[in-house]
């Protein structure tokens, strides 16, 4: 990948800056060697300041989509173009190294990118602060709850100050309260940093709550059957979930999801 990340002070980068495109998919398809057609004709754009969520039934190729975007696995046809210096990737499980403390885990990626010791330590400190893990730096992952592990995982990616953030159902295994709290923190982070996000979930409510745009994927072979722009602004609070506007949009997304599934 690209040059070592410069030190990343956790300042507002200003989401108002001219939106640069960080991810572009054109007619992307994926067929696995065993003949499974996972994706077909996927078009997609993510700019900085976009929070794009993909909802779809399980097994429709959502993870495959992210794996192609991140370069972990090649597309079998079509064009996938990443225009980001640094990519953050948050997996469904926190993938923390059990022998490293929270701080050491958060430092891992900066370490892999060859950042200097002091820059690494500073970036980790800032990221830990940002996700609310102050005071837990010395703990081992096994002493953390699921939600705290996910925060640590998030902080680890934040140290690189990524332009493009990929999330593969990161909160799927958490209880609802923790999940909603992390949703709020993610929105806060997104507005503070202004990265472009591609977020996978199977929860319609989570999709609508988080995003600026929701893409609905059909069952296998996965392709995007519907797109919804989300009109809510940056100041989203948990109460939003109980407004008629929210319910109406969530209803439409659910409907599209059922249509695509059948």
């Amino acid at each position: 990948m690209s040059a070592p990340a410069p030190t990343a002070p956790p300042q507002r980068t200003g989401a108002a800056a001219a939106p640069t495109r960080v991810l572009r998919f054109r007619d992307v398809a994926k067929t696995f060697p065993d003949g499974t057609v996972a994706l077909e004709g996927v078009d997609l754009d993510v700019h900085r300041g976009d929070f794009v969520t993909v909802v779809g039934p399980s097994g429709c190729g959502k993870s495959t989509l992210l794996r192609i975007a991140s370069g972990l696995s090649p597309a079998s046809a079509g064009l996938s173009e990443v225009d980001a210096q640094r990519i953050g990737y948050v997996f469904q499980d926190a993938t923390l190294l059990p022998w490293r403390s929270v701080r050491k885990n958060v430092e891992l990626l900066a370490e892999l990118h060859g950042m200097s010791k002091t820059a690494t330590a500073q970036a980790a400190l800032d990221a830990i602060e940002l996700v609310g893990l102050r005071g837990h730096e010395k703990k081992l992952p096994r002493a953390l709850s699921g939600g705290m592990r996910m925060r640590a995982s998030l902080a680890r990616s934040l140290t690189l100050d990524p332009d493009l953030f990929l999330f593969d159902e990161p909160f799927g295994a958490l209880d609802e309260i923790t999940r909603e709290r992390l949703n709020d923190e993610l929105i806060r982070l997104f507005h503070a940093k202004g990265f472009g996000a591609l977020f996978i979930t199977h929860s319609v409510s989570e999709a609508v709550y988080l995003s600026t745009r929701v893409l609905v994927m059909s069952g296998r072979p996965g392709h995007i059957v519907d797109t919804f722009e989300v009109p809510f602004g940056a100041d989203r609070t948990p109460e939003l979930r109980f407004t008629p506007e929210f319910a109406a949009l969530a209803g439409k997304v659910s409907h599209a999801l059922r249509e695509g599934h059948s």
Partner: protein
Amino acid sequence: MSAPADARPAVEEAAVSAPTTTLAAEQAATPGAPPVAARRRGRRLTDLLLPLGVFAALLGSWYAITYLVLDERRRFILPAPHTILTDALFDQPTMDKLLPALWRTVQVTFTGLAIAIVIGMVWAIAMSQARSVERALFPYAVALQCIPILALVPLIAFWFGYGFNSRVIVCVMISLFPIVSNTLFGMQSVDRSMHELFDLHSASRLTKLRKLQLPAAMPAIFAGFRISAGLSVVGAIVGDLFFKQGQAGLGILLSNYSSRLQGPELFLTIFVAAGLGFAVFAVFGWLGKVAVGRWYDQSRDAG
């Protein structure tokens, strides 16, 4: 740790407010320990008492056999326990032979084990780096495990003579397999998503090895060391028993005492050999705990 009395109210308080803050509930989980600790202390006591009871029973039956079953002329087969102390342990000439023999066996054991650790880990690391290397080399590890090493001992003597080197070779061959298989198994147990995390950030093979695979394999590696350490003692004594020549280790003493019908000396030597086996096992168990106990829950092995 504070006294249990201090900790309890904190637990109750947290339990009341738990629904609002998951964090408080989590932190409260630790002070909740006292009853568990008390139960554990109780278990530790029975852990001590039960084996002691068995020991007393064994000692009793031993005396019974020596004095009630065997007639006087045949008592050397199973000399009474106290004669092992009086005739062997407190007998200067016996100890003058036993201690140097123990030292030589210790040297063979640890030299063999050290070589087995180096060869075994290099072998396993090589196999972990490419499927093709694994396919090429793993059958030999299995072969090593399947061939009765004792059948090779005469050949080893034939090639390498009857001295220190041959004894060490037997040790290495006997203790190699657990190190190879455990190291390889440990390195291969790393989750795919962990590998992908490192791949995403273009980590080199060496970085992955150092920061991911080897640390992840440490619990398995230390379990392998522990098994191999015990086997290495076996190797040292078996080698000694067979080669006979050269400076005597415990194996040669065992064989001599047995052929000269020196019961108490024979039994003392057996106990010393057993003690050596137990000691190396315990040392490596302790080392493993120091190395990975902080993050690795060993009860998962036992369970």
